[in-house]
């Protein structure tokens, strides 16, 4: 997937100015930068929900899915109906939908909570439901906007494991926006360190170490990333 000459200035604020970026298919790319530098906006541009002033996104994989920092579940829908949303909007068959939703709920350990409302779940469960919703339609592109930032340590480890598992199974192109060097070191095939606005890439680190990475590997990568 490629971003070419992307310019986006909402209300005159130059968030993206003539930005070029390439994301390797089937890989996990982490975009690492401090808050407010425009990385969440970049993710929304990649998702195609922000119209660019100029420039374009090409070769966007089919069935994009987005995981927000906040679970962004629709509070009036049961967990099942929330996870079903992408399939419902795509007009899939009811039988296919039911099976896919059951599988997605089971994969994040929420099968027993299918008929609850989001308000009846814990924060971690809500986040897992939101991940199930992203994965239910077998996305070709998975966009993660700091999905681990507001989680406790256990839930966070859980989510990281689920994301890695889903990526291994689906082979989807994955872009993770984060301000946490550790998450980038644990997950990514490539880390883009960014600053801004306007957003610019200040460093580009490929990471070859296989996943899952043990803490020693992650520690080494972390040191290298921080040093740069």
């Amino acid at each position, binding site marked *: 997937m490629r971003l070419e000459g992307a310019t986006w200035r909402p209300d005159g604020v130059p968030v993206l100015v003539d930005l070029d970026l390439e994301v390797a298919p089937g890989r996990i790319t982490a975009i690492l930068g401090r808050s407010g530098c425009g990385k969440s906006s970049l993710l929304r541009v990649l*998702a195609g929900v922000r119209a660019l002033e100029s420039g374009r996104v090409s070769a966007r994989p089919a069935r994009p899915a987005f995981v927000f920092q906040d679970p962004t579940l629709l509070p009036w829908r049961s967990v099942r109906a929330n996870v079903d949303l992408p399939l419902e*909007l*795509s007009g899939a068959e009811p039988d296919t939908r039911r099976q896919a939703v059951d599988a997605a709920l089971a994969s994040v350990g929420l099968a027993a909570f299918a008929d609850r409302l989001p308000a009846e779940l814990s924060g971690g469960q809500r986040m897992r439901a939101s991940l199930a919703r992203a994965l239910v339609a077998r996305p070709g592109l998975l966009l993660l906007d700091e999905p681990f930032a507001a989680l406790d340590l256990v839930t966070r480890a859980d989510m990281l494991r689920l994301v890695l598992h889903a990526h291994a199974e689906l082979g989807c192109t994955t872009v993770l926006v984060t301000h946490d060097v550790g998450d980038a070191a644990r997950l990514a095939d490539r880390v883009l360190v960014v600053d801004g606005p306007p957003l610019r890439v200040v460093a580009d680190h490929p990471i070859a170490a296989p996943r899952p990475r043990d803490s020693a590997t992650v520690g080494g990568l972390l040191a290298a990333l921080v040093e740069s």
Partner: protein
Amino acid sequence: MKRAAWLGTAVSLVGGVALWWGVALRAGPLLLPTPAAVAAVLWSDRARLTAALAETAFGALGGLALATTLGVVAAGVGWASRGWAAAVRPWAVLVQVVPIVAIAPILVVWLGYGRPVALATAAIAAFYPVYSATITGLGAAGQDQVDLVRLLGASRAQELLVLRAWAALPAVFSGLRTAAGLAVIGAIVGEFVGSNGSPPTLGHTVLYASRSARLEQAFAAIVLAGALALALGLCLSWAERRLIARWYGA
């Protein structure tokens, strides 16, 4: 805290009735009937007053239903098309700013005496709060929620049905609570000019009882009108709690 709130309400109500009683005893029954006199009329005249209450309730509820339908549809259509929104807005504002008392006599000319006038005045009085609350509500969905459904390829119609209509409900309910009180006022204003007392209505009762110096009867009708508005408001609050509070974990 909750007990203190109940106590405050009770003391204020009892105090208010006591004050009313004291003033009534000094002023005399021609100017202000005592609460006991009003209660006596509520009992002795109960058959006619109940019929009047039912008639006014019909006008207010029917008008509220009409206003809700029109207000929600007008706001929804306005959301779908800016052109429509711009076309509807001046009329909606006009309905809001022209005093209902000024429209009512004309409605009698058009609709004749009877129920339709009260229905129409109640609907006119209740329309704007529902309309404007629905507009606010349709804009209430979070940006992330909107991004989500758009990313999933939702059409405008799907965005409205899957997301915005639901996200609008808390605002719509708050508009409805305002509108319910206004619908009762609207119905009574309609009955001032559009009801000849057969069938009996609360509006007609208030008007003719006060003209013929039977204030205890007018007050009895006013008490019932207040109770009607209160009951409508409580029903709406109950429905809102049952429906919406669960979603937001309240």
